[in-house]
């Protein structure tokens, strides 16, 4: 044991390879960042307009409070104006029986800042169907993991099976609090690991890992809620790329690259805009853990 006491610190000394370091980075030029993920859920729809910030800043993104945000239905020419609240958030409150987003319609987002109008177009795709959410007690021996003395929640949902892949973004909540860490971004194709073609049935069941509603240590009487947003292929790869860049670390880290944007900057605009606009058909269900 005495020998081990000497050898173990020595090994750690030799193999410890990562250190947080201070690096001086130049200030990047100003960009507008548009974060617009809109769905047909009957809740407040939010578009966030901010600017980029220095990389090592530890604050929330600087807000832009003088933008005019409008969503236009290109099929019906209906227009929806978003109102500024705070922290760069522009909100459209749904107060009619109708929804803001309709299946198969194309939508244009217009964000006007200081006379320049930044635009983006996206289409509303078909959604998935949620059958139920299952919850079961985990004493720590669950083969899928999760902490002991907690409840794991599983999603039972179906995807339309044909030769057109569907792309989904699953958002999980505990007691109305969204799990929003980078590790909580759950995206999938056709509810599985990849596109399902030539399926023998009309619908197919979601499979792990899409069905894992994040083993988040649910307790008795917690509310587990899930939203399945049917997003476009481009939005799916936007998330995929964003996660790649966020988790780009270690020995096999790749050269950092700028994520794609689907926001168009008008000719002559002094400040470029980047970000993402997505329309989604969303379904939601919740369950009290019992």
């Amino acid at each position: 044991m005495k020998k081990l006491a000497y050898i173990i610190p020595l090994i750690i000394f030799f193999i410890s390879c990562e250190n947080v370091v201070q690096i001086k980075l130049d200030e990047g030029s100003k960009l507008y960042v548009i974060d617009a993920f809109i769905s047909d859920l009957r809740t407040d729809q939010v578009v966030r307009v901010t600017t980029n910030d220095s990389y090592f800043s530890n604050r929330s993104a600087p807000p832009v409070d003088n933008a005019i945000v409008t969503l236009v239905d290109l099929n019906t020419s209906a227009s929806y104006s978003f109102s500024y609240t705070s922290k760069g958030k522009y909100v459209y409150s749904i107060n009619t029986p109708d929804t803001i987003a309709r299946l198969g319609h194309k939508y244009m987002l217009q964000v006007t800042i200081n006379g320049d109008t930044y635009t983006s177009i996206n289409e509303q795709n078909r959604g998935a169907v949620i059958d139920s959410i299952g919850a079961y007690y985990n004493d720590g021996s669950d083969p899928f993991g999760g902490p002991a003395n907690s409840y794991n929640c599983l999603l039972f949902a179906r995807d339309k099976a044909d030769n057109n892949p569907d792309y989904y973004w699953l958002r999980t909540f505990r007691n109305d609090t969204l799990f929003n860490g980078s590790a909580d971004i759950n995206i999938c194709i056709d509810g599985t690991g990849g596109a399902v073609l030539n399926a023998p049935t009309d619908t197919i069941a979601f499979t792990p890992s899409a069905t894992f509603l994040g083993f988040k240590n649910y307790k008795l009487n917690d509310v587990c809620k899930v939203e399945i947003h049917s997003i476009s292929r481009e939005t799916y790869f936007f998330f995929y790329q964003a996660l790649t860049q966020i988790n780009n670390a270690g020995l096999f880290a790749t050269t950092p690259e700028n994520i794609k944007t689907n926001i168009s900057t008008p000719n002559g605009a002094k400040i470029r805009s980047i970000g993402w606009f997505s329309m989604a058909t969303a379904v939601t269900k919740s369950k009290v853990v019992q």
Partner: protein
Amino acid sequence: MNYVLNSFSSIKASYNRMAQYLQIISNTAASTPLDVYTIASNNLKPLIADQGAIGYFRNFKDNMFETSIEVYYKYMQNQLDYVDNADLFINNYVEGQLIQGLGRAYGTEVYIKKSKGKLGGWVSYTLSKTERLVRGISNDDWFRSRYDRTHCLNTNMNWDITKQLNIGATFVFLTGTPATFPNSKIQIQDLNIPYNTTGVRNNYRITPYHRLDLGLTWNVDMEKHWKRKFNRRVWKRKLFGLDNNISSPRKFFAPIFKNHESSWVLSVYNVYNRRNAYSIYFRTKAGDPLQTEAVRFSVIGSIVPAITYNFKF
């Protein structure tokens, strides 16, 4: 081409054209064993490199010092590079992720060597620049290649203290490897996403690499060694009143150590324990989604002492 000016100086010049049908493609921040090589095909032209160099060579003090200074220029066509956001690993359609462009490298090299006397060694210094121009990458402008090293200094020194004892030292200094760093971050769906507003590839460098290694070599005189061992045994036997009719251990070992050459080497790698960066990457701090940080990744980031015994048989 070699033009001899006199008995101690000459001018050498060279030109060569090379076609290379195998090229490395890598989008990792540092070289790894997983880097992918690809061959020229219907879609990928072979690399063609033209290189010219001219140098002046001169010896001083009866060839005790050898010196040279050279300049070179290399121009490359069909240099292979990858598009932004490329997926190179286990991709059947990897050629769709690649584009070809131009490359150029130029610089000067100075070399001094002392080859006679107890104190020997050499110093080599290179001042150079390596760039690429690939349409669709880095704003369609020349950008630093990952192999660009502005300064490269290599020194080696040997000092024969005695016939048997030798000290050696090696010092290396290299400008940091070019790397692409984000200069800002954006927030989308509460994710902190790094972003480089300039769009320039390899816009920064990791910290410079430098390292000092030391070595102490003791060449064992085997003849002397066997004699000393034999005398010790004789002396011991005398002490205990035994007869001295014994054979030298050399007789036993001589067939093994035919050349009578062996040495002990005590060496220290990275004497001043510098944690040279292998790569630098960026991440969101664990437990604090708003805070981002830079992390230096070092491979052998510590001092490494070693003892070696060499023998010829």
